[in-house]
């Protein structure tokens, strides 16, 4: 479903992705972790070409992202993305946040889009907030709306870029539960997160990145108990035992 082949990216002089290669099958849930600045968010943003790469090849659903003929907008419509800071549209009500893309990108009628949107809001547990503005919601509610907005396009792949990092601790759970449900339904997911409990519960694989390289690519039980690389072990000890 998603293949990275020796992907390299630079921000000016800075080499942020170094020969990143991996393959993700349909239905797989992959958690990506690593220290800050390790390139994990950049890697994620390459999947729907929010970032362009300098060398290598990325193929998503059989579409080569670098080929000039590829219809990137069409591909993006099939890849949902959830951001650290939610990025809901502040000027639109929750429902309008959900139906804008289906109507304008897919050409779905307003009635059908509204119908789907209300079902999705029910699924993430906030249908009663449909006519609220994003600023009137808590962080956890906003992030659940953001997930519903991405799902409204009926994506085949979901990308999560540190979805719980900007949340107060008591709201992390409600967002993770929605994500767990999604994983159990068989959605293909790449999740950049430090929530190792989530990785243990639903991930099929954990990719550990450091300084722009993929260091480990293991099943969670292997990764947590017998990570080979010392950098991964140091990272794990730091993240699992912060007092």
């Amino acid at each position, binding site marked *: 479903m998603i293949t990275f082949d020796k992907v390299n990216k630079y921000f000016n002089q800075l080499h942020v992705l170094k020969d990143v290669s991996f393959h993700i099958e349909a239905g797989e849930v992959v958690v990506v972790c690593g220290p800050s600045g390790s390139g994990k968010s950049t890697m994620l943003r390459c999947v729907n070409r929010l970032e362009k790469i300098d060398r290598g090849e990325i193929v998503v659903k059989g579409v080569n992202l670098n080929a000039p003929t590829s219809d990137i907008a069409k591909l993006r419509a099939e890849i949902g993305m959830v951001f650290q800071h939610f*990025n809901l549209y502040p000027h639109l009500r929750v429902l309008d946040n959900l139906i804008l893309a289906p109507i*304008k*990108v897919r050409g779905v009628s307003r009635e059908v889009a509204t119908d789907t949107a209300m079902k999705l809001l029910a699924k993430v547990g906030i249908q009663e907030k449909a006519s609220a503005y994003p600023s009137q919601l808590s962080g956890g509610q906003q992030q659940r709306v953001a997930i519903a907005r991405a799902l409204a*396009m009926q994506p085949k792949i979901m990308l999560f870029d540190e979805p719980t990092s900007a949340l107060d601790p008591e709201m992390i759970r409600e967002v993770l539960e929605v994500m767990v449900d999604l994983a159990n339904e068989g959605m293909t997911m790449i999740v950049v997160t430090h929530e190792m409990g989530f990785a243990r519960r639903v991930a099929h694989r954990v990719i550990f990145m450091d300084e722009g390289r993929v260091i480990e690519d293991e099943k969670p039980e292997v990764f947590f108990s017998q990570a080979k690389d010392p950098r991964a072990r140091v990272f794990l000890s730091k993240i699992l035992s912060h007092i």
Partner: protein
Amino acid sequence: MPRAPAALKPKDAFVDWSILWQYRGAFWSGFTVTVWLSAACIVGSTIVGLLAGCLGSLPSFFLRRLISAYTELLRNIPLVVKLFFFYFVLGIPGIPAALLALTLHQSAYVADVVTAGIRSIARGQVDAGLSLGHGYWQIFRYLIIPQMLRIVIPPMTSQYVAIIKHSSVVGLVAVQDLTFQTQEINVATFRGFEAATATTVLYGLLALAMIAAMAALEKRFAWR
């Protein structure tokens, strides 16, 4: 239209407000000229400024530079110079010259306000739009412009008040606005104090009305 200072000694020890009533016709006509001139320039500079500001925000280096050259050129030359150029050099009659000069002048400021407004919209909004499959035009149309329109209301208010104030210079090319009429009354009656006070109050009221109207507009955008 420089004139000799009016009476140089206080003619009477007391102020005589009846002069205002006596010259109410002149005040009223000056007031209406100021109001409609300002209104026309507000509409004009908003249209030109919005267009220029949006163009200057597109991801094109040369377009951005071109628009910033436009605003720098207009901002760094005083309004009166532009007004005199249209009136005295090109020979455009007073009212069109005033409209043209004021609109052009303020459009540069509006364009800067719009550009700054667009720049202040979080990059994440564009990311979200792209990730959902919107093209750049849709992102501009449905995300950037509506958010920008809300953000620019407060700075736009100052620009509109500035237009009302700056419209006072049109008297220098014999357009009979409020300031012009005040000077006429001053010369005719030596009652400069009363006339100037009344005019000052009128300008103040216009500014307040503008601020109130914009505040009401801001309230209608409930989000945020």
